[in-house]
């Protein structure tokens, strides 16, 4: 085969987009610290209950024994239940609901935003009016209605949170699709035989991911807060411990034994803050304007 002269450019090591983003991410110290904290919380949620074998529902000691005394690290609540055990078991529920609800809202949001942004026209009109309808609903009230109607189980609470929080993802996805569908490589993919579904899922969506991922990360945090709010109001599964539920059930004793409310409150605060910082770090790492080539 005849060889043709080459315009040379030195071969760099092949680095995929993921490696590149990871490289940018570690440059932000706050995000790295937050990620470590978050990983510790996740590890505690996964392995904690197995290592710390105290049932969070069992009355193990006298009520209101303060942290550090009598062998219970974080003290006991108004029924004499171990708060440390409650925190560890509650971490599972809070994180699981946060992740599941965020995942659900991302799935709904991407589907609606992608269809609206890709097809435009009446599809976009209908879907965006639908999105606006959900946007103007009072979210807490609407999710309370759902939980009240279908019962306070983990699944229902997750769905109730997911259903009210997908609108931001839908709008971001639509905006990204509107921008990307006009780019030349989409036309080039179409010209090489790609169909609508392929263009949406395999060509446009991966390029729309950066802002969606950031939004999804932040949404895990807000879903945890949302769950805490619902369980504080008593709208959560009574058979499982969650952080919000600990706060809610100890609420009457907030002046006498403030630590029973403060400790799970700090857990929520630290977790949500860590998630937000990781989200910000991702945002900086994924933002092409800040990335230097």
């Amino acid at each position, binding site marked *: *085969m*005849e*060889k*043709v*002269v*080459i*315009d*040379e*450019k030195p*071969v*760099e090591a*092949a*680095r*995929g*987009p993921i490696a590149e983003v990871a490289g940018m991410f570690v440059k932000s110290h706050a995000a790295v610290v937050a990620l470590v904290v978050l990983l510790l919380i996740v590890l505690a949620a996964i392995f904690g209950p197995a290592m710390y074998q105290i049932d969070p529902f069992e009355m193990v000691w006298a009520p209101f024994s303060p942290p550090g005394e009598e062998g219970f690290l974080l003290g006991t609540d108004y029924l004499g239940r171990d708060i440390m055990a409650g925190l560890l078991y509650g971490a599972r529920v809070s994180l699981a609901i946060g992740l599941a609800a965020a995942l659900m809202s991302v799935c709904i949001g991407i589907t609606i935003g992608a269809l609206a942004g890709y097809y435009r*026209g009446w599809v976009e009109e209908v879907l965006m009016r639908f999105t606006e309808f959900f946007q103007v609903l009072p979210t807490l009230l609407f999710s309370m209605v759902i939980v009240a109607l279908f019962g306070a189980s983990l699944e229902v609470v997750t769905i109730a949170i997911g259903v009210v929080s997908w609108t931001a993802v839908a709008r971001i996805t639509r905006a990204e699709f509107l921008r990307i569908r006009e*780019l*030349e*490589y989409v*036309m*080039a*993919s*179409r*010209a*090489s*035989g*790609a*169909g609508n579904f392929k263009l949406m899922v395999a*060509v446009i969506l*991966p*390029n729309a991911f950066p802002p969606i991922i950031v939004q999804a990360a932040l949404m895990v945090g807000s879903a945890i807060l949302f769950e805490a709010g619902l369980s504080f109001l008593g709208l959560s599964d009574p058979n499982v411990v969650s952080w919000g539920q600990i706060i809610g059930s100890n609420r009457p004793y907030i002046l006498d034994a403030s630590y029973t409310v403060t400790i799970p409150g700090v857990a929520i605060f630290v977790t949500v803050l860590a998630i937000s910082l990781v989200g910000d770090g991702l945002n900086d790492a994924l933002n092409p304007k800040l990335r230097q*080539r």
Partner: protein
Amino acid sequence: MATQTILEVRDLTVELATRDGISPVIDGLSFEVGAGETLALVGESGCGKSMTALAVMGLVPHPIGRIAGGEIRFGSEDLVAVGEDRLRDIRGNDISMIFQEPMTSLNPVYSVGEQIAEVLRRHQGLNHKQARQHAVELLHAVGIPDAAARVSTYPHQMSGGQRQRVMIAMALACKPKILIADEPTTALDVTVQAQIFDLLRVLQRETGTAIVLITHDMGAVCELAERMMVMYAGRKVEEGTVDDVIANPRHPYTQGLISCVPHVTDDPSAERAPLVEISGIVPALRDFGADQCLFAARCRQVVARCAAERPVSNDFGSGHRVACWQAEVAS
């Protein structure tokens, strides 16, 4: 023409909805492409070159544009009439296209190898391993050094010329019968342009692909094409072999296009005629489709008939066709 005709466009009309109403941006266009030949489409921006390419690919932007009439015969099929499913099988497989902007025509999130392999999997039914193997061979064939390693690099790690090579590899992956090259070198350096032309010529010799070269660069036309078609305001004004048309342009517009290109190879000390520009501008879209010569307003040889009647295309021998009332006297 000795060679077999593989693409035959008959009376193609493409309409675009604009604020001023519906304009025929391609108006009764007819041409043929023979197997393995290179046809150049030449004309100013907005004359309908790219729209012609999109119409052939079945990619006229919907819903603002539509094919209003005519037929595009490819083999035994009329591409205007076949459905979207069949068009998807044809695109990238039998007819493929490379675009003007190599910097933005590749998807930034996939490695170049994956993008080539994707076309092969889609049309040739290769599995992942075979497709990747073939992608390496294709990269090698388009002159990317160290193809086995470069196959997993991403578009932003390549120069413009290399990306255009990747686009060519993708376009030729399935050995298409027709390659539409829409100003493939406009965005590239002059030296790289020459390399890309060399590459296209070599690959055309090997694969027997017909090339439809869309350009406004007369140098590129002479370099690559055997036949050329000059378009103005959505209509064909002149068509013929490159030698005939360049040496003996009969349409005033073609004459203008040729005379505004400087001749670098001329003796620098020789007395040179000043470059002539074509005065005036392309007619507004709303004037397209009028039953007159649309070039009349800018033409130096205009006569009364030009504004009254649409010129018909006449053959001046060996396929040199010109649509001009003054074509007899023009040369």
